[in-house]
């Protein structure tokens, strides 16, 4: 145990800071706002391309994929620096960190060239088609069917909660290719271009704003022909792709919760007029503890000593800490929290800027944190079974 930083990481951090200081787009350039997680305005495409060309997009990848072969501690420093400055490396975050990253891990050379690199260079945007009306926490129960006809797959079915689908060029879609196999063993992954005949997207709004906050989609597939070369990771090998799709991102997901907690420390200091302030101390404990547990998980991952289920602890703890503190901040501000539209934090043009809105909205927006990426209930089960060794139900 030691407090000091590794000189290699500090040099990396310094170089990144220098790059960001010199190259961050100015607010007037970034006037056009992104309307969904796959809608990338021209200035944001240029920003992402600049990061790609300079090896700052996915730093742990080699240069041909927009990186510089960074180590895991350097990658953590990268996430921390971007988070602290509230900078998105991409306005199609799932495109680069899930879809392109999955293709780099599981795709063919041609898929990397045709899909991964254009997504990384912001020439294409992508969405992730996992959840279905009947398959949420039980993802392996998905029913969208793909029939192998010999020269293509014929896809029929429906996805839902597909973030940004209506603005995306391609959907990485989890489909059932073998209905007779055990449910985890009959799943495959297809790259389905949204312009394919038979694909239709129906976007629908978040509870926060019916007009400006439209990211969710229902996606319907009706006799969609998908070329065989769009199969990712092999026939019936989709579950491995699902588990590997977040890769190191999963180990670092906690950084975004630490950032939310830090925002709350900055924005919500109680005046002391509304009684009990102790939640503000709890918030600071949570922030410090989350960082420590995050570093611990990272060291353990590098040394091969970490239980992978430790990531569930970080996700559960981080998302619930943000939720609890946000509720307290909302209560602290009383009826003012109901104002809409309203700002509670300095404006920021380098992200979607949703987290500086009204206190009610900030609280409401913590729920995707406890629902998406495995609900809190699922993560508690994982901790109980894979860390504490309790029997499966």
């Amino acid at each position, binding site marked *: *145990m*030691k*407090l*000091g*930083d*590794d000189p290699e990481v500090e040099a990396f951090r310094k170089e990144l800071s220098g790059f960001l200081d010199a190259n961050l787009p100015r607010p007037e350039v970034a006037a056009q706002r992104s309307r969904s997680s796959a809608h990338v305005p021209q200035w944001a495409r240029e920003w992402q391309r600049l990061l790609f060309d300079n090896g700052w997009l996915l730093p742990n990848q080699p240069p041909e994929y927009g990186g510089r072969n960074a180590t895991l501690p350097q990658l953590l420093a990268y996430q*921390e620096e971007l988070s*602290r400055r509230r900078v998105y490396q991409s306005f199609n975050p799932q495109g680069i960190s899930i879809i392109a990253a999955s293709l780099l891990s599981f795709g063919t050379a041609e898929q990397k060239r045709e899909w991964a690199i254009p997504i990384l260079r912001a020439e294409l945007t992508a969405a992730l088609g996992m959840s279905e009306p009947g398959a949420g926490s039980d993802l392996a129960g998905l029913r969208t069917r793909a029939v192998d006809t010999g020269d293509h797959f014929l896809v029929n079915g429906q996805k839902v909660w597909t973030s940004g689908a209506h603005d995306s060029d391609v959907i990485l879609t989890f489909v059932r290719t073998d209905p007779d196999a055990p449910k985890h063993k009959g799943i495959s992954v297809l790259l389905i271009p949204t312009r394919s005949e038979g694909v239709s997207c129906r976007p629908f709004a978040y509870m926060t704003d019916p007009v400006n906050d439209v990211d969710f989609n229902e996606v319907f597939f009706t006799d969609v022909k998908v070329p065989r070369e769009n199969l990712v990771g092999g026939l019936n090998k989709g579950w491995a792709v699902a588990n590997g799709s977040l890769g190191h991102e999963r180990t670092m997901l906690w950084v975004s919760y630490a950032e939310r907690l*830090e925002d709350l*420390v*900055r924005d919500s*200091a109680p005046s002391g007029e509304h009684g009990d*302030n*102790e939640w*503000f*101390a*709890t918030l*600071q*404990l*949570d*922030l*410090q*503890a989350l*960082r*420590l*547990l995050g*570093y*611990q998980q990272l*060291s*353990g991952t590098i*040394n091969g*000593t970490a239980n992978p289920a430790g990531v569930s*602890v970080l996700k*559960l*703890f981080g998302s619930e800490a943000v939720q609890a503190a946000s509720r307290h901040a909302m209560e602290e501000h009383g009826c003012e929290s109901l104002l809409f539209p309203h700002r509670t934090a300095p404006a920021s043009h380098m992200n979607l800027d949703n987290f500086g809105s009204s206190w009610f909205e900030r609280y409401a927006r913590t729920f995707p944190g406890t629902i998406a990426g495995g609900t809190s*209930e699922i*993560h*508690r*089960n994982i*901790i*109980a*079974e894979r*860390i*504490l*060794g*309790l*029997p*499966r*139900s």
Partner: protein
Amino acid sequence: MEFEFDEDQRLLRQSVRETLAKTKALPEDAQWSTYTELGWLEALPVELAIVLEELGYVADPTPFLATATWFAPLAGRLPDGAGACGGAGTAVFDGAGRYVLDADRAAEVALLTAEGVTIVPGGELAAERVATFDQRLHVAHVTAPAGTTLVARIPDLALMGLAITTVGACRKILDTTVAYVKQRHQFGVPIGSFQAVKHKAADMYVAIERAKALAYFSALTLAEKDPRAHRAALMAKAAAGECQQVVFANGLQLHGAIGFAWENELQFYLKRAVAGDLLLSTASVHRKALLAAQAPDTANGEKEAA
């Protein structure tokens, strides 16, 4: 920063566990002389935390905690003297001499007074042991010698020490609970397969991980004389108190009636955990102290020291 035990620290933990497994059934003074002979009292803060976590895990009955984390930081040395537990020490730093750990059996007592630290032989001090729920816990009320004015200022090391000891007791409660819900069957299955039970156990685990991380961070800031040490100690003590609230309630609840029975050894750890929160003030007091201590480090906690 590197927040994992190094090889030496892992070996120390292993050897502490092995030692405690052997000394478990020995009388108190034999346990005490084993600890002192192994040099545990001289351990630096992180290593001391490793020892204390394991002592908390076995609800250690010796005056180790008071000697290492109450007396030593005030006196700047270890105590002299003999007694049932030879060379035990404690300190009065609450400004009142109330509920002082091991004051009834300390060879020396360090008093924090308006004039500074005064060290008094335990035999010369009026210390009256208080009967408590935990029969293994020694606490006493101390009457300060005439003419001394006691002052209140809790050493950070004492907060850290009680925090990590409490975490150790909580870990024992969780382990005991997990073992119990795996073997206890109802409706034809182990109760540990029920989601309602799993979720309570998972919450215990998360609370312990959080408190343990903050306790070791406190030890690390003390070891490196980092400017964040005081805030870290307040955080550690608050988190340990919060942790025991969850662990006590869920652990006793999941044991059902057997957990409430005298014959079940769970009681020792439950009592040790609660005492860990109540001694040197509860979580709530330390949360308030943290808010009063200074403005939070908003920019970057890791950078503040630089």
